[in-house]
């Protein structure tokens, strides 16, 4: 039997349990909404402007650097699995791969893009 069936079962049960818990709580709890209760919680101060504000670009930079590193590190996993059997040549290839990656990090760093300013 395909082992992924069990992974699927974990997804199903993992979703059922919180759905069940929230569902039971929804059945048991009182439901008396009013505008004050439902207002956005901002320490008792009236909300100013829209809530979906615009963000600073630095978040995007970190997500960008993360994306590149994430993809490249994931690619290293098949290399790591096979490393024991492949010998020194493969190790050197992997090191070149990582060094190229680190060069990108150094560039970003030198450009001052890793500063939270």
């Amino acid at each position, binding site marked *: 039997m395909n082992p992924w069936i069990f992974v699927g079962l974990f997804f199903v049960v993992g979703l059922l349990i919180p759905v069940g818990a929230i569902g039971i709580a929804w059945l048991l709890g009182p439901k008396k909404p009013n505008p004050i209760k439902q207002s956005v919680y901002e320490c008792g101060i009236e909300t100013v402007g829209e809530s979906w504000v615009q963000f600073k670009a630095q978040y*995007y930079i970190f997500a*960008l650097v993360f994306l590149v590193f994430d993809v490249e590190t994931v690619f290293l996993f098949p290399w790591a699995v096979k490393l024991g059997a492949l010998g020194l040549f493969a190790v050197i290839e992997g090191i070149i791969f990582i060094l190229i990656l680190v060069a990108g990090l150094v560039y970003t760093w030198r450009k001052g893009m890793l500063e939270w300013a």
Partner: protein
Amino acid sequence: MTGEQIVFLVVAFVTLFAGLMVVTTRNLVHAALWLVAALFGVAVTYVILHANFLAVVQVVVYIGAIAILFIFAVMLTRRDMRDQGPQMNKNWWFGAVLAVLTFGGLYFLLQGWEGMTKTATSYPVGFDAISELGNALVSPAGYVLPFEVASVLLVAALVGAVYVAFNPRNGNSGK
């Protein structure tokens, strides 16, 4: 109809529905979340194909990184998101016709191909695709050059993206 076929059909329809929502929803954050659903469906398709590594990389890279990047980008370019005006351009019907034509043409072409109805040989027991993949990626007889070039490509993309988006000479960098 076997269980595998039923699973495939369900996943395929959910994925296609999510894909349709991606291209038609007005709210861009919703579109990005629908994209996550579609990509997850594609990951399940990989699982049905026994491509374990691709499936998990799909989740890690697309849902963990690319979807987040999309949501961040939507938040950064928010001012336009107030859904003012139509989300579709004037020629959207032309795009629709072209998409339907593409699908029809592909379907027609594929029908005429004799390899179309091929069924898979049973998956070899004990075959470790990941270790084969590792072999293919780093052995000189395999794909070592594309592997290293992919690294260069990604670093180039990083450098380019950082330069394009946040060149201080473009004026207001950082807010």
